[in-house]
């Protein structure tokens, strides 16, 4: 260890005690290969046990550790101190969410939204297990595969100003998930998802800011999922109005 230290300015908020969030500064030993989360764990273990935040896998796949790092939503287990050092680093809870405490946000709203898009395979006729799998070619898989990569980390919600302004907005990850099932060759439930996806609070509130895709750590591209849903639903709409006799 070379004695160098990195400074982190961390948002603290304890309900009942703090009226509004405040910032607290901590110094940790600077290690080149530490991620931000390592620094937080160091603080928790050795400096201040009251600091609260979520984490688990420390390998960028469980989606727990999203925070604002210098104003940008990031997985703190996937950005390094060295990316900022020797600048001070500002750590805040993800924006656009209510704060429970310190860096912990309330995401129960998202869980309701997740459920509302019916993220499960809907079939008109079920195949028996004994008859084996539904066949799906690699091409059919690739039609939706990208949209299965979402780890529910909420970075896209923190990046989306529309969600910030309108908390009812279904939001990027939930829509991308609905789209993922719609594109799955095994699924036949598109129509029953459109009520939610195709509502004002669904795809139509999105103004294609595109920041959701920019910040997504898993290259899900929710912005594309939303715009493509708009195209599909619009096509269906015009078909059903202009060709009411035609099949949809």
């Amino acid at each position, binding site marked *: 260890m070379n004695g160098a230290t990195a400074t982190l300015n961390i948002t603290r908020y304890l309900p009942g005690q703090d009226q509004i969030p405040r910032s607290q500064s901590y110094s940790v030993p600077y290690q080149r290969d530490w991620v931000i989360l390592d620094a937080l764990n160091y603080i928790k273990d050795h400096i201040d046990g009251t600091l609260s935040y979520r984490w688990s896998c420390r390998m960028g796949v469980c989606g727990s550790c999203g925070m604002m790092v210098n104003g940008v939503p990031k997985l703190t287990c996937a950005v390094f101190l060295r990316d900022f050092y020797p600048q001070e680093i500002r750590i805040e809870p993800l924006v656009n969410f209510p704060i429970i405490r310190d860096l912990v946000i309330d995401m129960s709203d998202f869980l309701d939204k997740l459920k509302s898009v019916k993220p499960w395979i809907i079939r008109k006729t079920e195949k028996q297990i004994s008859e084996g799998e539904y066949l799906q070619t690699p091409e059919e898989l690739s039609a939706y595969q990208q949209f299965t990569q979402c780890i529910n980390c909420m970075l896209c919600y923190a990046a989306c100003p529309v969600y910030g302004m309108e908390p009812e907005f279904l939001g990027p990850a939930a829509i991308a998930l609905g789209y993922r099932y719609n594109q799955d060759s095994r699924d036949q439930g598109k129509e029953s998802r459109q009520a939610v996806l195709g509502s004002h609070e669904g795809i139509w509130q999105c103004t294609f800011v595109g920041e959701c895709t920019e910040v997504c750590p898993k290259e899900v591209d929710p912005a594309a999922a939303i715009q493509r849903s708009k195209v599909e639903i*619009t096509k269906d709409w015009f078909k059903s*109005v202009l060709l009411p006799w035609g099949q949809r």
Partner: protein
Amino acid sequence: MAGKNSSEPFWWGLFSAGGVVAAFLVPIHIILTGFALPLGWISDTGMLYRVWWVKIYLFVLITLPLYHWAHRFYFALNDMGLKVIRKPLAVVCYGGAVAGTVATLWVLISV
């Protein structure tokens, strides 16, 4: 299907069509009417505007991007926090585009 009950796909469809028209056609027309003509790079285009199929083209050129404007402007104002007056805004924006369509139709028929 909720999409069917709401009019949003309709407006969005017009918005998109308008976006395409604006992207492909508007810049060259700005060059033509905003610079080339007043600065005398090209001679008068007035007679061209009376050709029937050019009129159809002009109708598309002018009206669709108005819907594009209506949609974007309405949502941009919402994003800027004016959602409290969402209803009147919608009337002004989309209503404006419809009024523009009627006006365009009238002008093109009358010239």
